[in-house]
């Protein structure tokens, strides 16, 4: 297990550098001069020159990229915003907890509701509960989360006036954004749990358990559930990344000051260091999440553990 963990952590390094390279290259080739954008169209030539020098914009690509990696990952300095002149790390750190919390609650909601729903659907296959849940899940998968957010605002803020349409500090403010972001994942986790449970329930060892007179409760939770959870865990890990990205839309629907909104604003103002930093941060968190999921996976599934003895 230790060897596997170490192996996986080392594998993370090329991935992180690769992600940084992709994002850095993308924004490097972007048309438009950030110096002009930051200083305004009619800034004097010397000021533009000075700006380019300060931010090292005239250096060759590889030099710029190596500097970015070196300063970023060894000194925690991802440059400064062109607009506010604050360090990127500071700007992101102010916003990141909100985005992370939003994604975390959304995953949590998906797990806490999705898994029980999936289990009930599988156990009572073709019942009314199953059919209704599956229709809702079908719509949930097809629904863009920003539209779900708009509909919730329409119903609960505009018509009923129960919940505030924006913000993310009090519980009331959090209900709609978390549900909005969670919608698709909830549907996917429910469907995955259901189909995985159905498959496991058909297995021979479940029939054996029934034959020896095991109680139905024990069959479902002791025998079937642990095996049925393996694909569900993978899905949950993948959902976390989707939700970190999808948070960008939810944040802009509910005017939540998270990394997503910051990035959308920064893209419009061509504030590249912020955009780069934001994408990198989210990708990093996603990588660590995946690592955690894979380790959990190895811990749950002895077959993987056995490979790394």
């Amino acid at each position, binding site marked *: 297990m230790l060897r596997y963990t170490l192996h996986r952590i080392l594998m993370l390094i*090329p*991935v992180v550098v*690769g*992600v940084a390279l*992709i*994002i850095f290259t*993308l*924004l490097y*080739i*972007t*048309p438009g001069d950030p110096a002009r954008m930051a200083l305004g169209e009619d800034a004097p030539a010397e000021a533009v020159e000075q700006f380019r020098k300060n931010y090292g914009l005239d250096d060759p690509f590889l030099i710029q990229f190596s500097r970015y990696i070196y300063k970023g990952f060894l000194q925690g300095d991802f440059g400064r915003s062109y607009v506010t002149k604050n360090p990127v790390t500071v700007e992101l750190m102010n916003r990141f907890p909100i985005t992370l919390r939003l994604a975390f609650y959304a995953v949590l909601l998906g797990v806490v509701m999705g898994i029980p729903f999936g289990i009930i659907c599988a156990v009572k296959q073709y019942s009314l509960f199953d059919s209704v849940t599956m229709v809702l899940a*079908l*719509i949930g*998968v*097809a*629904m*863009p989360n*920003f*539209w779900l957010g*708009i*509909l919730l*605002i*329409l119903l609960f803020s*505009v018509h009923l006036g129960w919940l505030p*349409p924006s913000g993310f500090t009090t519980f009331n403010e959090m209900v709609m954004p978390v549900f909005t972001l969670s919608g698709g994942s909830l549907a996917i986790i429910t469907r995955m749990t259901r*189909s995985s449970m159905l498959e496991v329930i058909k297995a021979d060892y479940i029939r054996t358990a029934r034959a020896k007179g095991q109680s139905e409760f024990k069959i479902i939770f002791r025998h079937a559930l642990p095996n049925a959870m393996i694909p569900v865990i993978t899905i949950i890990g993948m959902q976390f*990344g*989707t939700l*970190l*990205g*999808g948070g*960008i*839309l939810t944040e*802009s*629907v509910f005017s939540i000051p998270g990394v997503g909104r910051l*990035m*959308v604003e920064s*893209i*419009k103002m061509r504030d590249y260091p912020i*955009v780069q930093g934001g*994408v990198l941060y*989210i*990708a990093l968190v*996603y*990588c660590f999440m*995946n690592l955690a999921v894979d380790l959990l996976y190895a811990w749950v599934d002895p077959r993987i553990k056995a490979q790394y003895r």
Partner: protein
Amino acid sequence: MIFRKNSMLRLTWVRLCRNHLAIVGLVILVALIFTAVFADVLAPYAYFKQSLRERLQAPSLSHWLGTDEFGRDVLSRLIYGARVSLQVGLVAVSISLVLGGSLGAIAGYYGGKLDHVIMRVMDIQLSIPTILLAIAISAALGPGLFNLMIAVGISSVPAFARLLRASVLSVKEMEFVEAARAMGAGDLRIVALHILPNCCAPLIVQSTLRVANAILSAASLSFIGLGIQPPFPEWGGMLSSARGYLRGNAYLSLFPGIAIVITIIALNFLGDGLRDALDPKQKR
């Protein structure tokens, strides 16, 4: 349609017809494609025709789905929006299919170091959430229909690369491939004529489902102002501008969303149906 007796295509079609949901999906899609192609004839008004005297009108006989903040007919804009969404979905998926497919086929067929390098690069791309990557790419390319297609297309390249690599790996050791090689066929011929046709089934299913994803991504990008720019009708963009009129003009934010959901559901139905029809052994 003309089929040879009991051909693969015919069997698939027969099986697909037994699946009611898939047929519903197919019918909706055909209707949507029809709408998109004949938008000029079907739309009661031009999508850009403004009429400030008729702005923000609720649905009525002359404007079935009402008018927006510039007095433009919502129904007409939805109809033209179908054209944009389907175009983006199809072109974006074609881009990822061609790029991802060739990378995956090369990786699977040649194996070894090349395989390792290609798949590691794909893994790296996969560690950026898809929508985030699409946002970054379209931020870099700038707004516009074509750039939107590229951004959405590139962001789902790894999915196709992985799929095709796996299928090629499972096919390339088969005897008929060896037979082709023994008869002196070159690599390109073997891959294109012998291996690829046998990887079609998962590819068709995946492509159908990916079109749905691509349409969702495109709508999301337009919603945050990165995709298609305002005067041009795009469902996500329409929702974005409708947000300012939630109080009093709720219908503006209903119809584009309904259009998106119906399209996605239809594609999902068809995709799932195709999966079952093309591979009856693995019926889920």
